[in-house]
């Protein structure tokens, strides 16, 4: 859909930025909102495309509104609610709110006000207009599968690569990549990354012609290596962020000083009374156990952090040590690539405990251990 892509300068000059929220903080809010949509989606048995669509709505919404004006968890619920209807997997608004309540601390849930359902329903119309009714959103998943079908080589390795790329696509939702590049390009870049990390070298593919140097030249034009590396780094950066960065949550955490105005539309959240300092990064509390409202995940645990690959200096090793093969890779191969129409790449957020819990640290102290790891998996459609 034209009109929904932004350059880096525009991403740094968002309504939130103009509202005094610094870039790092905004990126964290976006990440938290995206994670929350994904987590809520999983809890409610919604498919990956519904969650992904909701996340894209969320990112687009905040290109027109400030996080100070619209509390992110309310917006996130509304995005998932709308995505459910659009993707024909509708969930009742009150059920989404119920699930959200279970996932959020009381403090965060307070941003929903006295009538949470009304809050979300009112936002629906604003959301629709903000995203200009561009409801159909494409995601990289379908392209990933389409491209994988054309690649030749060891089938087990190819499957591993596709699963890893699928994971990266999931995680990319927590970045603003969907606001920067078309899904085709993100799919290519993350397959390229997965190929490097799983040491799957694509040397031949169906439809190859003499003028093709790289397999993706069959599908996308003018994609430079610099661009691919930039996209990969944006995803890899997620894994290198420390949990302490998610500590602070100014707009929603500060005590509410003034009652909100009667209009539920343009309700300024408390952040307006306690502006975030635009100049200072959020305080680091790496040695202090996070308070109870710290998001119940850290970004290092989305997937196993990819191992450093010798001879591929483009990507530095993530700060935390990782096992050579991320745990989700241990899932049985989904089947030979010609049938890749439905490889079951595991949705890694859910069913894998973090691979790199520091020894001796009790679960839940400063890394995320899902309390009851659900065994649901995020499968692509058949």
């Amino acid at each position: 859909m034209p009109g929904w892509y932004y350059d880096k300068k525009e991403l740094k000059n968002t309504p939130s930025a103009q509202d005094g929220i610094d870039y790092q903080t905004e990126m964290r809010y976006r990440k938290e909102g995206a994670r929350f949509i994904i987590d809520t989606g999983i809890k409610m048995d919604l498919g990956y495309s519904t969650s992904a669509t909701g996340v894209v709505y969320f990112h687009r919404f905040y290109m027109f509104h400030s996080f100070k004006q619209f509390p992110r968890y309310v917006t996130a619920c509304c995005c998932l609610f709308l995505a459910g209807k659009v993707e024909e997997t509708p969930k009742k608004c009150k059920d989404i709110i119920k699930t959200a309540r279970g996932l959020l601390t009381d403090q965060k849930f307070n941003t929903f006000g006295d009538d949470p359902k009304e809050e979300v329903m009112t936002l629906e119309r604003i959301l629709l207009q903000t995203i200009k009714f561009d409801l159909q959103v494409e995601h990289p998943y379908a392209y990933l599968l389409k491209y994988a079908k054309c690649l030749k080589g060891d089938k087990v390795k190819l499957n591993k690569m596709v699963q890893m790329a699928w994971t990266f696509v999931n995680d990319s939702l927590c970045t603003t990549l969907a606001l920067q590049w078309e899904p085709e390009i993100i799919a290519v870049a993350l397959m390229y990354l997965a190929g490097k990390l799983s040491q799957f070298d694509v040397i031949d593919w169906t439809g190859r012609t003499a003028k093709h140097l790289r397999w993706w030249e069959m599908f996308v034009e003018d994609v430079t290596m610099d661009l691919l590396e930039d996209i990969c780094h944006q995803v890899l950066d997620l894994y290198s962020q420390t949990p302490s960065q998610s500590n602070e949550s100014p707009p929603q955490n500060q005590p509410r000083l003034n009652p909100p105005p009667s209009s539920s539309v343009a309700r300024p959240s408390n952040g307006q009374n306690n502006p975030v300092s635009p100049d200072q990064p959020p305080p680091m509390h790496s040695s202090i156990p996070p308070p109870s409202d710290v998001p119940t995940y850290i970004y290092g645990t989305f997937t196993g952090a990819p191992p450093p690959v010798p001879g591929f200096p483009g990507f530095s090793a993530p700060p935390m040590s990782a096992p050579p093969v991320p745990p989700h890779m241990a899932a049985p191969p989904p089947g030979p690539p010609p049938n890749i129409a439905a490889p079951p790449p595991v949705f890694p957020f859910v069913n894998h405990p973090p691979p790199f819990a520091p020894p001796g640290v009790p679960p839940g102290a400063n890394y995320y251990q899902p309390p009851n790891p659900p065994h649901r998996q995020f499968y692509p459609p058949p």
Partner: protein
Amino acid sequence: MADRSSHFSAPDQTGHEYESLSRIGSGAYGTVYKAKDKRTNRVVALKKVCVALTEDGIPMNTLREIGLLKQLNAHEHPNIVRLLDICYGHRTGKELIMYLVFEHVEQDLGSYIERNPRGFNTIQIKNLSREILNGVDFLHSNRIVHRDLKPQNLLVTFDGHIKLADFGLAKTYDFDMKLTSVVVTLWYRAPEVLLGLPYATPVDVWSIGCIIVELYNLTPLFCGTSEGDQLTTIFRELGRPSETDWPKDNISIKWESFRSIDSTGYMHNFSGNICETAKDLIMRMLTFDPIKRISAMEALNHTYFTEEPINT
């Protein structure tokens, strides 16, 4: 229906605001206004859609259809009318008024035919037909059935190009049709619709067949006065379908009830200036059995469109 408010404002970041100029028409689907975008002075067509809100907000079907309209729009197909904006109007507890803002095209194929009493030459007819089929093929490839093709919703631009309008929001139309007593024209309806059978994209091809004949004859092909009369009119002209072609399931109207009609039609409307190739294509479009009917894409590849233009 009184046109009470003359201002429709869209409080979004685009800041568009529309001033209603006149009512273009109101039909089964609702009302269409001619309006002016106060910011750009552009004249637009506002289609007023009344959305019944449910306990869970805007219904899923409405969202799906609007999403589809927006998606189609992104393709910028030359034979499809542009959707410029969507904005909200008045809202009550149970209803939300929305305005779909389309580009405004002054004339439709009906008025275009009226303004050209001496008719069109074969090249003009071929071009108009091709453009109609192009637009419809595009809708069909996006799994949209127009269902109400007629000269009145085929717009003709000042330079003579076709733009399809009034597609989508089909379910909304249906809903409204039951509530209003507006007479919807039957003249372009396919037999399967008249027989109350399930239908799909072939219904649009039937309508185009009727419209192409109208381009030659400057008068509608089948002018029935009721659903039964419409079928009788069709069968008299084209011949009654064979008993084997008559649908077996879910049909309340018996083949026997048309026994008095001959199996070969009068073909009154196919003499004159319709050449043999054109006639062959039209007959394939007016095939009784929707399965055997030519598709829009196949029609575009018919000799009628691919042969060297001969002349006139």
